[in-house]
């Protein structure tokens, strides 16, 4: 009898502890890309058009805009919902906080433009409200969602343009390549030569690679950065460790006579190549923060 009551208590506790989670856990859909059309309101060609426009804006101004459509708001106000989305997605660049979320809830017939801290001066509450009332609402009322999204996004882009130019905004991916000077090329070749040499030396004698690494790394460091006496000791340590690892690698070749794997080293050690192109498939927020600015409306 006692045992049963105890079990019932435990069960009750378990149920009670789950209920609040179920009540407060708002399910925010994952960020798929710039246009997240969960309510199927936008036709595919328009979706692509919007995506292209927003990508262009991010390229020139670093401002990030995300569109989200949901079927319903799960019982919270649109302001609360969009704040949760903002917290989770972190649209906008980290320091600049220049993100905008355009949220539309289909069943509730509500919409909101949530504006990041950094854009509040440009895309003010009044302006956000005007965009919703003038550009979006008439089309949504008439059932023409595509046109509403196009005009709304155009309005937002026009509003945020000019606040953050590419020149003073640290964009995550530099759009223009910095020209590599002869010295850079020289030092890169130097590093490749050093790594190759260390592997080859390690192939023969492990400790010799450590010494060689410690000896040749500091001058190479000065070549690729600038002369700094402070760098000598750390450079030697680094070179020694490099020599140890590469020497062991070379030594491993000896025992297994494996094929070329050191080609892979030169790829990720110098990020010159990893900066060049990165497809926008895996688009994500840059860490922007929101303070509740923006405007809501309905249709």
């Amino acid at each position, binding site marked *: 009898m006692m045992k049963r009551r105890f079990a019932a208590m435990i069960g009750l506790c378990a149920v009670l502890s789950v209920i609040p989670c179920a009540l407060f856990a708002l399910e925010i859909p994952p960020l798929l890309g710039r246009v997240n059309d969960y309510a199927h309101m936008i036709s595919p060609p328009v979706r692509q058009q919007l995506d292209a426009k927003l990508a262009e804006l991010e390229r020139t101004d670093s401002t990030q805009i995300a569109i989200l459509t949901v079927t319903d708001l799960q019982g919270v106000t649109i*302001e609360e919902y969009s704040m949760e989305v903002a917290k989770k997605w972190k649209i906008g660049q980290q320091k600049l906080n220049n993100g905008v979320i355009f949220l539309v809830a289909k069943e509730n017939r509500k919409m909101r433009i949530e504006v990041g801290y950094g854009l509040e001066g440009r895309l003010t*509450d*009044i302006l956000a409200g005007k965009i919703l009332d003038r550009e979006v609402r008439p089309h949504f009322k008439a059932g023409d969602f595509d046109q509403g999204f196009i005009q709304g996004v155009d309005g937002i882009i026009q509003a945020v343009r000019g606040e953050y130019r590419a020149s003073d905004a640290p964009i995550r991916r530099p759009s223009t390549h910095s020209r590599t000077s002869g010295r850079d090329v020289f030092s890169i070749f130097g590093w490749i030569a050093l790594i190759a040499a260390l592997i080859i030396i390690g192939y023969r004698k492990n400790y010799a690679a450590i010494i060689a690494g410690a000896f040749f790394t500091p001058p190479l460091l000065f070549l690729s950065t600038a002369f700094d006496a402070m760098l000598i000791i750390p450079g030697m340590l680094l070179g020694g460790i490099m020599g140890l690892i590469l020497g062991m690698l070379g030594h491993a070749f000896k025992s297994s006579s494996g094929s070329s794997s050191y080609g892979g080293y030169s790829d990720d050690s110098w990020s010159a190549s990893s900066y060049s192109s990165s497809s926008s498939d895996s688009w994500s927020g840059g860490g922007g923060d929101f*303070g509740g600015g923006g405007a809501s409306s309905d249709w």
Partner: protein
Amino acid sequence: MKSLTCGFNIMVACLAVALFSSCGYNVMQANDEAVMKAWADIESQLQRRADLIPNLVEVVKGYAKHEKETLTAVIEARAKATSVQLRPDMLTDPRAMAAFSRAQGELSAALGKLMVIVEKYPDLKANEHFRGLQHQLEGTENRISVARQRYNDAVATFNFSIRKFPYSITNSLLLKLEKKEYFKADEGSKAAPKVQF
């Protein structure tokens, strides 16, 4: 011999740094500062709201002449809310916080009432200037609630940090920081002006 004492000194210094960083002195200071900052954010948003009200009242007056009572109530609540100030060093005082939050809550309630009355005047609702003010007011209310949430989070972090071991010892010996008050949503301010079209 000299190098030995030098080494000893370095060890002592390292130990002191390690002790100092684990006792939470800096953590509590940082948390205290975070609460101050969050409070400043709330105040600036509340100020922004207070600044919007005269314009709003002016516009409404032009269209809704018969609503003098409600308008006066808003003006009075604003005057009262701006007169009750809360300096950051008073955040530990429950009574001061309660008075502050009551004054702000009353202002929210008066504004809410005004926004309901506005519904009766389609001309006013169509007024461009009024729509702008309405969007600004809504935005500010929303910012206030976000700032309030952040402030309360900061207070929770701070209050926990002065109570947890071993920070509590450091606090009782050195810092003597007091628990800070939460800024609770008043009943009145929960009915923030939600505008229906």
